[in-house]
């Protein structure tokens, strides 16, 4: 009965366009946001902020970035980490070389730089289709990593090629405590998710899906293929770039090019496979899964008697379970956790009656 829809009618088209058509959904979102912005900073501790919530938020954002490109526009990419790296290093350099530039502006500029690089490597997508395209994105992956290591300028000639976070100040407020870094991340991620969700439901989002489902038909009804695909690369690159900047500065506080290697790209791909391709909510679910699942396993292991299973085997086990889950999801539920959640909600709508 909680999910009663009776009496809630959309009387204007605008009502229908809302993220949540039902009042319950909107109230739920408002409650969740209030809790996230006000409740969590009061209740959480350093461990939760630094080791769970911040990476969860950043990975959700990265997932969203890739999901727009792969889940919505159907362009498979294995170069997500490269675009994150561009975002992180560009933000660092804007902050370093343009003193007085506000942090948020640097992050936005970093995201735009990543968008530019993404467009460059997205250019072949008009001619190359399907998974031949992974060559282009892999080229991005390896080239960017090489260039960032190769040219000292990017890391301000740090002998180790490592960049460290600038002071985290926005509008004169200091955000460098764990709770502050969490709030800063949450703010940026919330804003971008609002934007991303809007995009996915706008005309551009429809065009992406059209290109994904059948690009010939999309061209025939007048959707400009090149522009649509390149916008997907650009916007995906922007989101990933901002995620990279957050990863480097609000999460780790430091990063080297190697931190954005191919396995990071895979990790983000797994987030969207598990969470759900072509779903906004799925990015959160997938990221939550990928952050929490290893912690769950290793925490459970500490509850077992010592020596029962050693840490190494646990890690191998985790790797295997991940692989199995990927395959299982692809076989049983290609739409991922998001679809499972949707099913659950549909059932909740009928509860307590079965029909």
């Amino acid at each position, binding site marked *: 009965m909680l999910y009663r829809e009776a009496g809630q009618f959309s009387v204007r088209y605008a009502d229908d366009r809302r993220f949540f058509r039902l009042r319950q959904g909107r109230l739920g979102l408002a409650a969740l946001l209030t809790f996230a912005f006000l409740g969590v900073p009061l209740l959480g*501790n*350093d*461990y*939760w902020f*630094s*080791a*769970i919530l911040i*990476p969860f938020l950043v990975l959700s954002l990265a997932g969203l970035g890739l999901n727009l490109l792969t889940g919505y526009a159907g362009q498979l990419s294995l170069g997500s980490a490269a675009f994150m790296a561009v975002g992180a290093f560009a933000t660092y350099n804007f902050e370093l070389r343009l003193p007085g530039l506000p942090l948020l502006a640097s992050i936005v500029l970093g995201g735009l730089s990543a968008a530019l690089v993404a467009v460059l490597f997205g250019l072949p997508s008009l001619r190359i289709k399907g998974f031949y395209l992974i060559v282009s994105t892999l080229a991005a992956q390896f080239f960017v990593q*090489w260039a960032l*290591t190769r040219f000292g300028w990017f890391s301000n000639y*740090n*002998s*180790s*090629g*490592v960049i*460290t*976070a600038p*002071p985290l100040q926005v509008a004169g407020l200091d955000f460098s405590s764990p709770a502050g870094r969490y709030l800063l991340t949450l703010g940026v991620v919330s804003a971008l998710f609002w934007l991303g969700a809007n995009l996915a439901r706008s005309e551009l989002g429809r065009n992406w899906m059209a290109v994904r489902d059948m690009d010939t038909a999309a061209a025939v009804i007048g959707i400009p293929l090149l522009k649509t695909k390149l916008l997907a690369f650009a916007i995906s690159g922007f989101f990933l770039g901002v995620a990279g900047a957050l990863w480097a500065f609000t*999460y*780790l*506080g*430091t*990063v*080297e*090019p*190697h*931190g954005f290697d191919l396995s990071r790209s895979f990790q983000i791909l797994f987030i969207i496979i598990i969470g759900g391709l072509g779903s906004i909510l799925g990015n959160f679910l997938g990221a*939550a899964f990928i952050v*929490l*699942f*290893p*912690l*769950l396993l*290793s*925490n*459970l292991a*500490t*509850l077992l008697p010592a020596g029962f299973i*050693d*840490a*190494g085997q*646990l*890690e*191998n086990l985790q*790797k295997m379970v991940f692989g199995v889950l990927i395959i299982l999801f692809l076989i049983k539920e290609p739409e991922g*956790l998001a679809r*499972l959640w949707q099913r*659950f909600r549909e059932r909740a709508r009928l509860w307590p009656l079965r029909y």
Partner: protein
Amino acid sequence: MFKRTFAGVALALAATAFIPVQAANEQYFPLQSYRVGPYAAGGTGFFGGFIDYLKYVNANGGVNGVKLTWSECETEYVVEKGVECYERLKKGLNGAPAAATNPLSVGIAYATLDRSTADKLPLITINHGRTDSTDGSVFPYVFPLQLNPYSEVSAIVNWIGEQSGGAAQLKGKKIVTLYHGSPYGKETNEVLQVLADKYGFELTLIEVPHPGNEQQSQWLNIRRLKPDWVILRGWGVMNPVALKTAQKVGFPANRIIGNIWSNSEEDAAPAGAAAKGFISITTHPSGTGFPVLQGIKAQVVDKGEGDLADPKRFGTVYYNLGVVNGILNVEALRIAQEKFGQQPLTGEQVRWGFENLRLDDARLEALGAKGLVQPLQLSCADHEGGGAVRFQHWDGEKWNLISDWVQADRALLRPIIEASARKYAEEKGITPRDCSKEG
């Protein structure tokens, strides 16, 4: 089903977040270990030696009666896992306070550097880490013990000089450095150039892209250059492949000098016959003859309590590095206890111990570690302390020492380190400590 999983996750996390606190006469070591993944060979050896030494100390009554405890958290050498482990373990265990972290990973060390300073918990990066963290006035909580990367190359050049019959003979020599295409690999390029300018040898820097399983073109280049020496600054699979490829192009292994991360059995043995004659530096010679290793063998390993899954690795390079690391940590603890009392200490107090760490020959003799650990003296300004290496050569089966301790030219390096530390301090807005006022 998934809902239940999430509920489980939440429960398990909640359980770890609220550990019951009880006082105990114990000192805790959070171990960010790695036993799987591409660098597992190093991790299992190092943490095996470290843990076995802690067990050995406990078997002998702990540190002045304070028992040592530890728990492991697998990092897989991945930075964010290391950070998670750090945050999870930094609070101590069952009331036993954490002494210091020893991640044995440059990436993790960098990512926990600021956190360590904020949390007042020493960060030990033995033989690696940020070179400029040697300057303790800017990096009060970071300790690149024994050997930082700059000292490493300086010692190698000094030894080459010795071999050629004096530093003056370095003039006109051709030296190639083959380095791993990563920040770690590039770290010493600048200093090598400084040394080349000073001594007048011809330096060629050649990069091997990560992971380094294909080096044909690099070695053909080396063959063409016909250098007198090749310094191998490798990591992981790059090392055996370098040796194999050297053989392939006919470059003699006894003209290749491996650096501190190219010096283990795991680096040489997979190359088989191609590795015979390979020279490398070490701060922690392999071998089981040192009294302290005999002690560990008698009191830990022979009782079936050793940490190594493969007992054959007892006394190997990585294992012995773990033991050396254990000795240095425990000694720091002991020295701090002299000042703060024989009880579990906070990270801040342990830091004082590290900063006043002093190991002379007599003490090393007493520890049964003479020849295994170099004499060492740290201070507020100097967080490295040693700066010496020994040379060893691979006979196809095992490492044999071929030199005594060779010192780096630390006076030459110090200004470069200080300049770099100053730049960092400015970027971060840190006011360096005045070391003359530290006690």
